[in-house]
């Protein structure tokens, strides 16, 4: 039986493995095509492009996933040991390797370009002009939102002025701070208008995560990072902290309202200003 040739044997273990691969493929396809659970509803313009990049990568990796797992499952089911039959003795195929190498590299180059187009547009197309700027200050375990008010100028802030009431250290003596509005835990912006978030942290690293708007940016103490987005669906959304920041990290939730009109937004600002000056 030396050099026994034969078809190999379909074994129970091999079949079981093949069946598991089949189940894995079917369940994955269901999860990623039927989407019984999926991204939080989209509510920003650039978010559609981010989702588009995700979908492109999903298609490429999905095909690779199905093909590889199916091949593995098939081979394992098909090529069980059979008596003293020998396996095939080949262990090289430079042409196939070269094709695979080039093929993978090409596909990845395409993915890099698709992804970078969105990335560069998001970060390097310059901050939008007619935008609303909100200064967001993160601290354990809450968010402060600072609006410049009618004059469009942010009042001076000074960390030595921070106390339990004046959490961001707004200098009340500064002329520009008179009409400033500082709100804790709740942000409003109007729909279809660009927003610039100027992000700071007072203590540790936090991360400003708007799941519906596809925005995530770490708030790093010592840095002021700006991130822009344009919400395009009005409604109530959530803001989460996505960077571990201490024991109550999970409680660092904020509310984000995308107002249906600029008028509604201005009314909210007015209401908040009255609350402040009325104090």
């Amino acid at each position, binding site marked *: 039986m*030396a050099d026994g040739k034969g078809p*190999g044997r379909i*074994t129970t*273990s091999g079949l079981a493995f093949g069946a598991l*691969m089949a189940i894995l493929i079917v369940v994955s396809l269901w*999860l990623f095509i039927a989407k019984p*659970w999926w*991204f939080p509803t989209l509510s920003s313009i650039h978010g559609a492009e*981010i989702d588009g990049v*995700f979908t492109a*990568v*999903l298609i490429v*990796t999905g095909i*690779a996933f199905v093909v*590889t*797992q199916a*091949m*593995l499952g098939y*081979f394992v089911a098909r*090529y*069980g040991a*059979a008596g003293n039959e*020998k*396996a*095939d*003795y*080949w262990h*090289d*195929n430079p042409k196939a*390797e070269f094709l*695979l*190498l080039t093929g*993978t590299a090409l596909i*990845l180059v395409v*993915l*890099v370009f698709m*992804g*970078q187009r969105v*990335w*560069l547009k*998001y970060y390097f197309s310059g901050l939008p002009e007619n935008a609303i700027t909100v200064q967001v200050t993160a*601290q354990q375990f809450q968010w402060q939102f600072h609006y410049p008010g009618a004059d469009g100028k942010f009042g001076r802030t000074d960390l030595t002025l*921070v*106390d*339990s009431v004046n959490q961001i250290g707004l200098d009340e003596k500064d002329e520009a701070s008179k009409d400033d509005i500082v709100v804790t835990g709740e942000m409003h912006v109007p729909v279809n208008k660009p927003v610039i978030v100027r992000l700071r942290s007072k*203590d540790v690293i936090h991360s400003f995560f708007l*799941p519906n708007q*596809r*925005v995530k940016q770490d708030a790093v*103490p*010592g*840095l002021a*990072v700006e991130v822009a987005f344009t919400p395009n669906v009005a409604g109530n959304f*959530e803001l989460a902290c996505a*960077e*571990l920041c*201490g*024991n109550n*990290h999970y*409680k660092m939730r904020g509310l984000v309202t995308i107002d249906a009109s600029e008028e509604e937004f201005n009314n909210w600002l007015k209401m908040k200003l009255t609350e402040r000056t009325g104090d």
Partner: protein
Amino acid sequence: MTDTQGHHHEGEHAHPQLGFLRKYVFSTDHKVIGIQYLVTAMAMAVIGGTLSLLMRLQLGWPHDAFPFLARLMPKAFDSTGHMDPGFYLSLVTMHGTIMVFFLFTAVLTGGFGNFLIPLQIGARDMAFPFLNALSYWVFLVSCIVIFSALMVQGGAPLGGWTAYAPLSALPDLDPHQGTGMTLWITAIALFTASGLMGGLNYITTILTMRTKGLSMMRLPLTQWSLLITAVLGLLAFPVLLAAAILLVFDRVGGTSFFIPGGIIMGGKLIEHTGGHPLLWQHLFWFFGHPEVYIVILPAMGIASDILSTFCRKPIFSYKMMVYAMAAISGLSFIVWGHHMFVSGMSPFLGSVFTITTLLIAVPSAVKTFNWLGTVWGARIQFTSAGLFSIGFVSLFVSGGLSGIFLGTSAADIQLQDTYFVVAHFHLVMAIAPLFAAYAGLYYWFPKMFGRFMNETIGKVHFWASFVGVYCVFFPMHILGIGGQMRRIYDPLNYLFLQPQQVLNVFVSISAFFLGAAQILFLGNFFISIWAGKRVTENNPWKATTLEWETPCPTGHGNFGPELPVVHRWAFDYSPPGTKEDFLPQTAPAVPAARQH
């Protein structure tokens, strides 16, 4: 060729007989040290695994009280039996730290590295046996120190295994960040020192002590992977050590390497000024990404060798496998920024790191292709070790592909710090290596202890684990797409996460099932040491590499009076023209059909 496997050298001890303590405890024998590493790491795995089950309990049922556990661990739960959020985060931190360093790095390089290097290269021991023993004892001390962090006043640190500054740099920020964090840093520093001693030893041994005929391109892939890993370790660990020392200075010395000005603590501006939190992240990930490959490369090597053995077929494209590992390790030093796409680092760097990161997919695809090429046309023997090595391939593919999403900076904006990341790295750098380690344990157990592990229990262990890991980690992708953040004590606190809580429950139940299945392994392992079926031959799996020329268990000094001489590569399975379906590396005759 039967004479080559039967090679039994009775008087193989050129080395003197030693007393019990020198032989089994303070031994300088690489095999004893390897087993010491394995068993110590297994103990750490039990601790790390238990911590993860406590996490899953909380995530599955975040609002439930656990009065029984509260009685066991009164400080970790409040009076109503609910878990303390700080305790939850210390579970997160300790689970990650223990698994990455004290389980995977220790098992794969410390355990298998020590046990296998001299055996597979035909040497009697490591180049520096004392240094080797010292590396183990320093490792053991680091295990005790990290474990003690769970016991101290204030509790274990809560900043995650990445210990981002300034949370890690300010001891007064939280009771957990006091003594617990100090112990964490100490343990990490000791661990890196131990790793450096090991790495130096591995490189020297593999480069200088290979037996006659064993050229580099005839090394088993396990040896290549261990060599490359050791180089990675020597380059990466010092960076972590330096970062840890700077962190200590910030904590106790009043320096500000990682602490910027303008931090308010307890309502007051603190005095630190001038540091940068991102410096820690750069240093940590400059180490941290190669660390991922320090774990995965040996797993790739071990799984490749075992896969080939039980496929009874040569590994497909050996050379490309070696080059791919070398390429992966080189690239691993220039991709660290993909952990920092939304950290506040310049977005220009984001573009650079996207390109370097996706480059790594090319050698990874080569490896996957080669494993498939190995299984194609094989004659698979479904042993426990063989099954685990096949499982490794499937898991590596599943975990590797999700890396392409995360490496694409634009897609990562949404996915960063969500469960999608958790799913990705668990599959690719925890579960796939775990499967390779299991394959290795079932495979080399006879060589270690002269007995087999029980194959039936081994197979049940495989099937339960394979189904279990997919049920635990696959749904995490979906949780992450849904936006669930990592390191969150209570996902139900967010409305947008509530509809997918059913997945958390499913994952938790699967995790308990998976955890229970590992008891099968532990029982099998420890009982088989004393009660397993005896091995009556040197080479029970009919494998080609040099360790199978020695008796089971291998004695002190490994080989007989003469060291083996190597005549061929490590993958001559099913060569044409031979009676048996393999040719050991020592087989002198050159078969007509092909020589290597």
